[in-house]
């Protein structure tokens, strides 16, 4: 077996310095190589993650549209069912005095609110459960009572 200690001791001071310098250079080079590799892998992984997330969001958005379309299509000729679902949403969110009416390809929902957030929740839930998209929103503030009319677009 090679006795490295003996080999080292047999070297002159100059040779020992040269060997040490070489070893330090090799270690530094390895460190730089390792750091560079880690940095490159980090960038690559970050880009891959960003792309995977964007793809997921795009696909989810598309899927929501497909599901919404399917829901809206299935409920197109069932105004009573739509009314029932909207009443259910209204009662779950404490919306007052809800009225639902239909006019060709439009559906109108009128109700009173205590809080602005109630409108956002209502629109989201209608979109999620019936697949209808909002077209416009009217808000009238009368004696601190908010009256809201939301216009939804029906699927042809």
């Amino acid at each position, binding site marked *: 077996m090679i006795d490295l200690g003996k080999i080292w001791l047999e070297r002159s001071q100059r040779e020992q310095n040269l060997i040490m310098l070489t070893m330090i250079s090799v270690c530094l080079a390895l460190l730089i190589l390792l750091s560079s590799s*880690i940095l490159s892998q980090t960038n690559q992984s970050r880009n891959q993650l960003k792309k995977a997330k964007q793809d997921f969001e795009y*696909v989810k958005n598309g899927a929501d*549209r*497909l599901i919404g379309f399917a829901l809206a299509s299935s409920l197109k000729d069932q105004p009573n069912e739509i009314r029932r679902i909207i009443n259910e949403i209204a009662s779950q969110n404490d919306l007052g005095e809800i009225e639902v009416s239909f006019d060709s390809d439009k559906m109108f929902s009128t109700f009173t609110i205590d809080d*602005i957030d109630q409108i956002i929740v209502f629109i*989201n839930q209608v979109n999620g459960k019936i697949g209808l998209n909002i077209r*416009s929103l*009217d808000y009238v*503030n009368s004696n601190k009572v908010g009256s809201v009319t939301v216009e939804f677009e029906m699927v*042809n």
Partner: protein
Amino acid sequence: MKNYFIHIDNDFAKAEVFSYGDSISSHHPATDMDEIRSHVDPNSKAVVFLPSNMIRCIYSKKETNESEEQFEARFFSEHEDDLITDVSSNRLIFSEENNLALVVEKSIIDPLNDLLNQIGCDVEIYPEYFLHQALDQDTCLFINGRYSFSFADGSGFCAKKESFNDYLDLVTKERKNFKPIFMAFDGAEASEFKQTDCKEVSLEALHRDFLTAHSKKSNLPSMFESKFNVQGTLRRFNFERRDLIYSFIVISSLLILPLVNIALMQSYKKSYEEKTFSIFTELNPNFRRIVNSRAQMDQLLLAINSNETKPLDLNVLGYLRAIPIDEIASSNIDFDNSNVTLEFDRMSSMKYSIIDNLIEQSNTRVIKNDIENTDGAFSGSLVLEIGSD
């Protein structure tokens, strides 16, 4: 900073350690060589004395045009016969100022250097006779059962008590007018020097004199060779076990955390890909694999009329929160055109300025402004276009 004097004994097994601080001094006799470290504080000055008989001290002069290598070669060729062992197994230390060459066997000095490199101090190794060296005077010190001689020419030697008389005869023959000053302490017998001057000294006084004489830059040739040593470095930096553990954790973290970060990002990426795949399988249970998710989803969306299924614009919904529409008489949001119409009915100037500031800070553009200020009350309509972001 503490100063330590370490006297190595004849058989290189024990040492005597003297410590001198600002006010406290201590003495550890017959300390094992491996125990020296425990009696010496790091970052102190340690002067180590080797018995002079372990070192050959030769008066020698280096020529001005001579390199160190040339001098070493010449020196060893001139004194090869004086050396007991092979030339290569000896180390030469030369002081140009004192014209003094010290030759010591590597088998003695190397292990000592290794040991002393572990204590994390500023170490100097000298022959013991340096301690009682006097200018142009021969001196003799009786210490630890040996007689240490320092000669006026800067060289020195030491003899064991048993061989003292033989050595003295030899020296007296070689050196005319050899009348050393005998130094003794702790009641050491001075019988051999009855006819000469005797001087009662204490070892502590010699140590202090040595420190005073060489307090600044010592011109004495030290045999200590400083080398990198892990234990010595750790002691020098006063690293404790806890510090080492913390350092290890920090260094490991520096190496491991980037790898953990990569692994986490890969894991999140995989999770997104799995979720994307599960969306496709929910839409179509016969779906097998994703090649290009966007293109595949676009293909599915071709089946429906895109005008009828526009994605819900959450940005416009979020805008409801930004403007306090409950403070406004009425408002209309047209989601198709991303327009907001605000109707004001005698709104106070303070409330209007708040809303005006909010509108300015938000991502909107005023399309139409029919607001009128009547005695500090604002009435009329304002049409805003909401930005796409």
